[in-house]
């Protein structure tokens, strides 16, 4: 399990966030919300092992994260960064297959089965044979999603801990694919026991699909808890700096609907 205690994160020695303590539990989707510049991506990069924490403890399976070799870490931690790019034109299939690079032990047959599954999960099967750079932004995003699903599911045995980190995965997607992506993430967390951390901008999407929410403000944690507990006007005002109204959702009374302004 990935566990952070009293974590300070930042780049070049300047802390953006302080005192973050959290656990990424298997089977749970943790949403990260915050205004622009609140430190969401910095937190994700720190938890992913890309940048060293400035202070505090960060452990994966009781080992300090920074002591785990890159190729070992890649077998249990998967990241979808914001706005991924590509320098030369690769085929869609090769990009999705790159997700299996940390698992050279997979047979070609196992790889084919896995790719067919993850391409279908990301609704990218239709452009398997196309070139990546010929796709639209939203289609590229779905291909990248298929790639990280490949890495998160490759050779996974039941009960094995895997963590999937997504940085604004819905940014380029139309509403239907935003819903499909988060539904897939949520369903995989339950069925495969994946631990998921997802940075989102849309509070209502987060309320619908995340089990717990982490709200960042003023260089620290503003709230951490279930959507019902944390999506309340004073917290939202502190996080986003605008007045917020919280209503029961017209489609499902158990859910919150947040309106700003």
């Amino acid at each position, binding site marked *: 399990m990935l566990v952070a205690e009293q974590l300070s994160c930042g780049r070049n020695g300047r802390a953006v966030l302080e005192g973050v303590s959290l656990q990424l539990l298997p089977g749970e989707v943790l949403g990260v919300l915050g205004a622009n510049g609140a430190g969401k991506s910095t937190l994700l990069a720190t938890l992913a092992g890309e940048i060293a924490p400035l202070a505090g403890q960060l452990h994966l399976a009781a080992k300090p994260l920074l002591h785990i070799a890159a190729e070992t*870490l890649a077998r249990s931690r998967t990241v979808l960064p914001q706005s991924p790019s*590509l320098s030369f034109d*690769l*085929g869609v299939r090769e990009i999705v297959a790159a997700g299996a*690079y940390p698992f050279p032990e997979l047979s070609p047959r196992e790889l084919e089965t896995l*790719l067919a599954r993850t391409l279908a999960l990301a609704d990218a099967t239709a452009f398997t044979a196309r070139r990546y750079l010929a796709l639209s932004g939203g289609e590229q995003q779905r291909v990248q999603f298929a790639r990280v699903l490949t890495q998160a599911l490759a050779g996974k045995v039941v009960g094995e801990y895997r963590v999937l980190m997504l940085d604004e995965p819905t940014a380029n997607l139309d509403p239907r694919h935003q819903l499909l992506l988060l539904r*897939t993430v949520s369903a*995989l967390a339950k069925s495969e026991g994946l631990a998921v951390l997802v940075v989102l901008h849309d509070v209502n999407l987060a309320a619908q699909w995340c089990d717990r929410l982490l709200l960042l403000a003023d260089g620290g944690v503003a709230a951490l808890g279930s959507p019902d507990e944390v999506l309340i006007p004073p917290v939202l005002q502190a996080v986003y700096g605008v007045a917020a109204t919280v209503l029961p959702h017209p489609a499902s009374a158990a859910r919150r609907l947040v309106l700003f302004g």
Partner: protein
Amino acid sequence: MSSPTTPALTIASSPLQLPRGLIVLLALLAVLILLVLVSSASGAVRIPFAELPRLLFGTPTSDEELLWRNVLLEVRLPRVALAVVAGAGLTLTGAAIQALFRNPLAEPGLIGISSGGALGAVAAIVLGAPAMIWLAPAAFLGSVVATSLCYHIGKRQQGVGGLLLTGVAINVVCGSLIGLFTYLADDNQLRSLTFWNMGSLAGATWSSLAFLAPWTLGLCLLLLRQWRALNALLLGEREAQHLGFAMKPVRRKLVLLVALIVGPLVAATGVIGFVGLVVPHLVRLTLGADHRWLLPNAMVAGAIALTLADWLARVAVIPAELPIGIVTSLIGGPFFLWLLARRAF
């Protein structure tokens, strides 16, 4: 995104169907073998094509056949073999450097290997090296020093930009020192300088190939095995790191392999430009950027390109010959311009 329990579909390609990259690779190998035969038969001394097998494997029965056999074995074949080895090495390293820098305009020259080697050789000539035999180690030393310098200064900067800028700076330093040496050189030395600067395969001997060929091809095999890391690099340095390729060791390994391949080649042939730049680009246009197939195909295509250039250099102005670097630049330069004009990078 259907539900996670969607049954697995099978993707089109059946296991029996050969990958396109493999088919192209086999075709290129066939072309290379044919070209090697044609090239060894032609030149100032024309050898009948049909006689090749008998000359290679039989015993000569006349004075003419003895001459042909000597030309073939002692002059042509080592030279063609050097063209194959140098073409393969320069192009493979070009493809790898382009992926490492994620820039289609990159080539080994960019990080100082070629100009370092040139500086080493030019310095040896002008400072009065007693014999041509000193050129090779001097060039090798120059490339290795320039590349290590480039790497050690470049790695202090974040990302690949630092390495690239350092390479540019080192090229400027080497270029100006070469200019200074050229200015100081006397007439005799100037002739050697020109000859060396333009590149040449004329110095090929079996004894130099006995080291160069296994060295280059062995290191090329090691570089071919890095195809996953190079593919991951195309996705970005962060993404490569996420996929388990720790960037610092991967960069160090790639730069070292490239320097170890190109250094001795520059020492043996002088500066042969454009092969490492244009050929990988052309293969990428044809086959796509998947390094699993791009790398071996670029290697064979590079061997073809340099063998072809060497053949042209020898048959264009019989009985004289053109410096091969001039031929590769004459063909490569306009061709590159045409590529640039035809489609945006």
